[in-house]
């Protein structure tokens, strides 16, 4: 199957393996990807960058057969193909390494790796051979992870590597990495990047999606930028610096995304925590927040930020001192925290935040249902009026208010969750990953709501993995690493670099 075909314009570079030609994809009336044409070559690492909602995930899903395009087509070795599903994609050698960990928690690394294609010796599975091969695959990352204990007992980083190893155990010509380093420490990230270089040397076409632009700069040969579902540019990586990439991703002045910062409040702290611990996740956390202040919590995934606040607010075991308005408190459950005026908005909107099958009104009033009671009954009129108010105030965009929460977009769900928790009129609001999976327009609005909450005199704590978001929004940022608060940045000293150094504990670039 030699020779150059259409789409392989340069005979000196390696030939095109996979081509996307005019791919578009719509969900209902919304076009999330429009007219994307890209060429992926053997032995080349092609990074795809863009903000949340830029269309990266949709593109990956189409390339790996999880989703069909609305228009356009794929060519493999120059032949047009249609992928009926991920199984067919894998059969053709296209492997997607998922962002979320998709391993059976009760099975071992080896069992997970060979799930569905177990090695056998006679009738029985050959555990010894599978363990040996799994160990070898993990060593390829320079990691000596136990391959014969349940995955549940491994660290998030080990699981992530196991998942990658599993994906690479299948025959592959094109490997798509979707944010593979999101939960890796610098050491493991370096190991993964080495592995990717080896794939490249073996002539595999690598697609690499990441938010971490330094990492992209380090690994990629070609960089494609997507914005709002459209192709912005494809350039050789050596021509670009991370700052250029960021500018192309956002496509406008970065600062305009965030509302004007109010002056740092100076009042007495309203919420003060000292020596708090969430066993197994966070130790010795001490901090305080003032009325009207927006306090950020930065850190890598798995740094213990979510668990720390869940423990403080009675959602998981924890111990330590909490003072609210000077009075010592201990919250037995979320209800107790809510009564005291402290609410926590979960990062897991779909799993823990909203009842996806219930209508908007039932979701809105669920946490503050006692305010919508007349005796034992629910006052439906009052509930309907509250929904009208919330829809107006938070600009929840739905044509028909009788739909269920699950039928709305991520941005509208986040607005509804915000409205739901603000029904409690809290003094302290903790918002975990406020803009995860939210489109850029809604993102901007959510930032404005957060700024407005602080202006009303509430204390807002924002937990986020997007450093730019924290820098743009917060008065002060605390950084957590390995379950401890390791530093604080504020004022003009808030730079991504400072936060990364604190969050990883590594000075300089650990990735080369």
């Amino acid at each position: 199957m030699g020779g150059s075909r259409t789409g392989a314009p340069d005979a000196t570079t390696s030939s095109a393996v996979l081509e996307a030609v005019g791919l578009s994809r719509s969900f209902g009336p919304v076009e999330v990807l429009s007219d994307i044409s890209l060429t992926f070559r053997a032995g080349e690492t092609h990074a795809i960058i863009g903000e949340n909602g830029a269309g990266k995930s949709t593109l990956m899903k189409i390339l790996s057969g999880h989703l069909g395009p609305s228009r356009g087509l794929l060519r493999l070795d120059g032949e047009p193909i249609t992928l009926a599903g991920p199984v067919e994609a894998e059969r053709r050698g296209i492997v997607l390494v998922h962002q979320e960990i998709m391993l059976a928690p009760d099975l071992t690394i080896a069992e997970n790796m060979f799930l569905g294609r177990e090695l056998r010796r006679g009738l029985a599975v050959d555990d010894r051979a599978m363990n040996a091969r799994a160990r070898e695959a993990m060593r390829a990352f320079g990691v000596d992870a136990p391959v014969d204990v349940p995955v549940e007992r491994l660290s998030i980083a080990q699981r992530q590597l196991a998942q990658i190893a599993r994906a690479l155990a299948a025959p592959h010509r094109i490997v798509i990495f979707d944010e593979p380093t999101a939960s890796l420490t610098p050491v493991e990230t370096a190991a993964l990047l080495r592995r990717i270089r080896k794939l490249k040397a073996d002539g595999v076409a690598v697609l690499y999606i990441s938010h971490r632009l330094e990492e992209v700069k380090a690994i990629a040969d070609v960089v494609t930028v997507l914005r709002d579902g459209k192709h912005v540019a494809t350039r050789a990586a050596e021509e670009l610096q991370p700052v250029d990439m960021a500018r192309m991703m956002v496509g406008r002045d970065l600062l305009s995304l965030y509302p004007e910062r109010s002056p740092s409040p100076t009042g007495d702290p309203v919420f003060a925590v000292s020596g708090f611990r969430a066993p197994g996740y966070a130790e010795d956390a001490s901090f305080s927040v003032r009325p009207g202040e927006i306090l950020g919590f930065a850190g890598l995934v798995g740094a213990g930020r979510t668990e720390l606040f869940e423990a403080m607010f009675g959602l998981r075991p924890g111990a330590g001192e909490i003072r609210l308005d000077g009075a010592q408190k201990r919250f037995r459950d979320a209800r107790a925290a809510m009564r005291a005026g402290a609410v926590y908005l979960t990062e897991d909107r779909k799993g823990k935040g909203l009842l996806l099958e219930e209508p908007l009104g039932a979701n809105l009033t669920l946490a503050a249902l006692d305010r919508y009671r007349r005796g034992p009954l629910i006052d439906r009129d009052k509930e309907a009026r509250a929904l009208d108010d919330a829809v107006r105030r938070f600009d929840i965009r739905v044509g028909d208010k009788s739909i269920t929460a699950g039928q709305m977009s991520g941005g509208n769900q986040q607005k509804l969750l915000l409205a739901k928790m603000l029904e409690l009129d809290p003094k302290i609001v903790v918002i975990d990953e406020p803009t995860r999976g939210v489109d850029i327009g809604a993102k901007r609005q959510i930032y404005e709501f957060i700024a407005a909450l602080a202006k009303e005199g509430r204390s807002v704590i924002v937990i986020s993995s997007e450093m730019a978001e924290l820098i743009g929004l917060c008065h002060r940022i605390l950084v957590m690493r390995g379950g401890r608060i390791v530093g604080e940045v504020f004022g003009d000293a808030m730079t991504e670099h400072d936060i990364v150094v604190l969050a990883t504990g590594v000075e300089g670039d650990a990735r080369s």
Partner: protein
Amino acid sequence: MSQATYAGKSSFLPRIELGAVAPFAALLLLCGLGELVNSRFLSVDNLTNVLARSAFIAIIAVGETLVITSGGLDLSVGAMAALVAGLEILFLNSGLIENTSLLIVAAMALSLAIGALCGLLNGLTTTIGKIEPFIVTLGTMGIFRSLLTWLAQGGSITVRNTDVRAAYRQVYFGDVFGIPYPVLVILGVAIVGAFILHKTAYGRRLRAVGSNEDVARYSGIDVARVRTIAYVLQGICVAIAVVVYVPRLSSASSTTGLGWELVAITAVVVGGTRLKGGVGRAWGTIAGALILEVIGNLMLLSNLVSEYLIGAVQGAIIIIAMLAQRSLSRGR
């Protein structure tokens, strides 16, 4: 401009959900079939009989609807019914109160208290002990039935005083304007059950807990309390059924209420309540209980299928109902 799209969209007609209507449609269809098979089927006598006979299951199943909606399950209801019946009869036999009417009323009140207590036991064990409801109620099922067997010394407990028996018979066999008491009780229990589920704040929380426990917890709902109350209400429903049941046979033995739990759960599921929780339909459950009773009745009235196969037919129905639910919810 964008504001305009919100306005005026709320419909005046309640949206009809196929899943909610299906059990009633099936019931009507069965009644039509019944008329074809045997012209006696639609006689007032026979229909009243069917309704009265379905009372126990229907009343218990309304309680089970609440428990299942909360994401729980109660396998102990049949055994609980036997135990409550036995204790009620023992109290009636004790003759602690001279006046017959007062004695019966006191016995009824005692039954309700015992039922509520049994439910509380189930509820607290599942919630505080954090044990699967299947296991807990499997355990209490054995405990309740065994206690009754022990109290009856392997035999049966019977109402001894003939005056009491005659007076109490009215509760099952009596009527108001031709409507038997058991039928009125079904209506009452169903109305209260549907009211709790759909109109009260407790019902909203019950559905939230069954739909997604984490969301409920993160919304500050006391999940354990909501679940425990559901089991207590279930216990009270069992006791109500017993109060209506005891006068029918005036006796309780180790076979009283045997297998009722499965029939009740079948009625709940056939009625459109989701087995894994979050969606509950009290009236659907009544329809489900009637469907099961009508089928049994039809099999007796006709000679098409041997009545020994009633269990097989009921088993087939629960599977068919699940398939129908699945395809209806997929069609939405």
